């Protein structure tokens, strides 16, 4: 029986590599804390398997605080009232357009739960682009998952707004290979690097400023970073004031079923 055993702090963001992403059990019992990235990734794995008729058994965290966090974040209205500073609870979006319909519910706590309106607006720019991209390259019956949290830095984590979007679709590399121009590129990480550029797309649509381009614009002088894991590759990008941005792209196995993105907008 295959078990995806997650331990310690932020296990999926930290980069756990299981034997496969199709477990019968997801064991969170030894998790010491979770980030929005972990939450959307777990939800995405679970929803994909459930859509295939083999929903995994969930073993919940033993630590009461982590257990409560998971319960708070999964509530339909798990917003800024949380003592952890939760801003957007876990949302499952069947289509990108569904995000627009949720905004009247999301915007008031987002703007009231953050220190300034500019950060909220920039967060919406990044989340909306990520959700659009997930809708395009995701194409998954499980939909797209979104979660966000504001950290003030007291816990030792880099402060700012942590955003996470995950889908269980075909992934960025496979999507870009639909474009004949990129069909022969074998390295997934190279295709993730291309996704950084404006106007790179797997379709004939004229969309796209590039995942990273929108993030870079939103981060501005606030700083932050974006981590993209998709298919068999990973990309990490950090803009730096007055210096060229830091970027790193590398292969990553086992292949991820879909795309998971973490983005942090600095305070």
């Amino acid at each position: 029986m295959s078990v995806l055993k997650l331990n310690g702090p932020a296990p999926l963001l930290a980069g756990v590599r299981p034997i496969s992403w199709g477990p019968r059990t997801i064991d969170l019992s030894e998790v010491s804390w979770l980030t929005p990235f972990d939450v959307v990734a777990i939800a995405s794995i679970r929803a994909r398997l459930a859509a295939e008729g083999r929903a995994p058994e969930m073993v919940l965290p033993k630590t009461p605080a982590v257990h409560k966090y998971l319960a708070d974040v999964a509530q339909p209205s798990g917003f800024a009232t949380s003592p952890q500073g939760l801003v957007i609870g876990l949302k499952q979006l069947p289509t990108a357009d569904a995000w627009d319909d949720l905004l009247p519910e999301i915007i008031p706590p987002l703007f009231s739960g953050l220190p300034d309106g500019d950060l909220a607006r920039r967060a919406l720019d990044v989340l909306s682009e990520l959700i659009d991209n997930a809708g395009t390259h995701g194409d998954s019956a499980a939909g797209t998952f979104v979660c966000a949290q504001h950290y003030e830095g007291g816990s030792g984590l880099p402060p700012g707004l942590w955003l996470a979007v995950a889908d269980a679709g075909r992934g960025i590399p496979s999507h870009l290979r639909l474009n004949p121009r990129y069909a022969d590129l074998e390295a997934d990480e190279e295709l993730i690097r291309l996704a950084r550029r404006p106007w790179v797309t797997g379709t004939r649509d004229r969309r796209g400023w590039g995942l990273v381009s929108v993030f870079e614009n939103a981060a501005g002088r606030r700083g932050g970073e974006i981590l993209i894991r998709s298919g068999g590759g990973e990309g990490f990008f950090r803009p730096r004031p007055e210096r060229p941005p830091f970027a790193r792209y590398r292969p990553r196995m086992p292949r991820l079923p879909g795309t998971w993105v973490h983005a942090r907008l600095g305070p």
Partner: protein
Amino acid sequence: MHAWGLDNSRHPLYAFTEIMERATHPYRIADRWNSFLATRDRGRRVREDVEDQLAKLEPGQTLSLDFSDVEGITVSFGDELVAKLIIDRAAGPYVDRGLVLEGANEDVHETLETVLARRKVSGVGLDADGEPEVLGEKRWLPETLKAAMELRSFSAAELSERLGLTPQAANNRLRGLVATGAVVREQVIPEGGGKEFGYRVAVPAYA
């Protein structure tokens, strides 16, 4: 004499019908959709609806994309709706129908500037007094729009003379101005026959 040979401006009936023909049709986004708009998916749906409305207008009429009561838009939505709408209109069959933007608050205004500048295209927004302002790529457009508003309806030769430009330079500028939506291009039959284009300002206060 009218710029393209139709001297109807002094007749009350013609004046009335001309006003009717030039009517501005508002498209209030907040009423039809939402007060905050985010995704490309939604932007595409709104754009398709706006293009349907544009198709229903008569040549010479103007569609005013009204952002009143819209609290915010993302760059993704703004690009998908406004930037692509302007690009499609300029390349499509509706260059004889005007398009202006109005009612944008400070945040929406800033986003519109960003998305248009990044696509290297321009649109025309109206301030609270109905005065036009070029958004996005500026270049020589403000000066050319000002000259066009003074002329209201004109030929390329008249604009060329007003700005002291060669006919070719005036035509280039007119192409850019028509692309913004603030001026419409109409095919006219000049005295003596043949075909040529006439231009008319589509900004409501100057139409």
